[in-house]
């Protein structure tokens, strides 16, 4: 599904503050894989995710998604395949727009935003049905501005928004870092459920090692811009939670 070949990325090249964020990464992620990426700060996790999303373009190497060479495509053109949940709950939604407006945009993620009014009664009904799935009681608040909701609620809705339109790849960049433990669990369970139900290929970055242990069917560890550990489904299943702690010792 996603194929990265000898990716390099350097920031501030040639300057005193040069950072070699990614130093030769080869990574093939198969369809319906739930990949967890762990690593200390500055190991290149987020840069790698941004390279897949297209927010930044690689210095060298190629990126393929679903068989298409997307190496030079900007993020808004890769949205055809990719939906994203950001670390900051504010980044994934538009706070001044209503929940309904946010969902409308998500529902036409892969389509052009035309000059017709897309919000009608049947659309409202389908949004309400989807939101009911979360069990947060938000289905009666769809006319409210997104900004009136808590971070956990917004993060859960962002997740739901990703499956409003056809979606193949789900990128989760520390989605629970800003949330309390209970909201974090709701969001992670929802992510897990959507991944299985909709057959998504999911990539999760997390600093929460319990999450890294609980979710996903493959785990990689990054350090200094390289992948230093890569455990497949069987290996991850036989892993103990303490083993992951030891990686950071």
């Amino acid at each position, binding site marked *: 599904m996603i194929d990265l070949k000898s990716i390099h990325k350097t920031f501030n090249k040639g300057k005193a503050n040069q950072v070699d964020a990614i130093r030769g990464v080869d990574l093939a992620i198969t369809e319906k894989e739930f990949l967890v990426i762990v690593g200390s700060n500055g190991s290149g996790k987020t840069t790698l995710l941004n390279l897949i999303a297209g927010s930044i373009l690689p210095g060298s190497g190629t990126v393929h998604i679903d068989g298409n060479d997307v190496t030079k495509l900007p*993020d*808004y*053109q890769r949205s*055809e395949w990719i939906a994203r949940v950001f670390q900051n709950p504010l980044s994934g*939604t538009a706070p001044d727009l209503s929940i309904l407006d946010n969902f409308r945009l998500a529902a036409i993620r*892969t389509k052009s935003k035309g*000059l017709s009014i897309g919000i009608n009664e049947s659309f409202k009904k389908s949004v309400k049905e989807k939101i009911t799935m979360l069990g947060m009681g938000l289905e009666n608040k769809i006319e409210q501005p997104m900004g009136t909701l808590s971070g956990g609620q917004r993060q859960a809705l962002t997740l739901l928004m990703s499956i409003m339109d056809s979606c193949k790849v789900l990128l989760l960049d520390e989605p629970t870092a800003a949330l309390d433990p209970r909201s974090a669990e709701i969001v992670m369970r929802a992510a897990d459920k959507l991944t299985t139900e909709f057959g998504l290929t999911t990539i999760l970055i997390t600093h929460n090692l319990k999450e890294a242990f609980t979710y996903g069917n493959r785990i990689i560890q990054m350090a200094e811009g390289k992948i230093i550990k890569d455990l497949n489904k069987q290996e991850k299943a036989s892993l103990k939670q303490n083993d992951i702690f030891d990686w950071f010792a």
Partner: protein
Amino acid sequence: MDFYLTALLQGFCFSAIALGIYISMKIFNIPDITTDGSYTLGGTVTAVLLTHHLPAFAILPIVIATGALAGSITGIIHTKLKINPLLAGILVMTALYSVNLTLMGRSNIPLLNVSSIFSLINISGDPNHNTFWILLFFVAIVTLIIGYLLKTDFGIAMRATGNSESMIRALGVNTDRMKIIGLALANALTATSGYLMTQFQGFADINMGIGIVIVGLGSVIIAESLINWFKITSVWLSLVLVLSGAVIFQMVLAITLNIGVDANLLKLVTAAFVLLIVSLPRLSFKSSL
């Protein structure tokens, strides 16, 4: 009374500018100063073409197109060359001064004995009443178009661009293109104000745009205070409040002049009034603590 009617009519003329500033400033979060230039540009194009005996209705699309062109140049400078939008606007505004002067050939064009949109239709014998109905109709149409646009999928994407850029890019919108379109739209509206005002006052002047951005800004800020006060989320109501803001602004100026404030101090009063409106919500917030 006629004095206040004139202020109301001026407010109507400025309502397009207010909508333009509302789009650039509130929807896109871009402080756009191209306004001063594109307003004069609208007036200039109108005056030049009217003196060449082009009918007023045929001039309008040309005015809209030139305003949009000015705005999109600011947008391109801002997005493609990554230049601060304030500076991009000032650059285009400065350049437009020469463009306007070249188009006019002199600094002032009076419009005597030429027909305008206000002489196109005769609804009432009183020319001021006639102007009132024509302007009201015009403003209503513009508001309907903008209101509809903001409700469409494209409009929602526009509103999201200024609100959460990371989100809307992830949802497949080219934000650079969106900003260019937004600034083009805002300045097309501004030029339309120049079109109306030139015909209303009967002349175009190279200096007519100086400080005009504050008129739009003041109107939007009045509207915003009301929107925050009454917690309004409806797009339609917000637009109507922006229009009211433009009228209230002109009314306040009219009252100031009427109570005998020196006309030379008008810009000072304008600035002080806008400052008052901006600070009011904060002052009242403090006292409620």
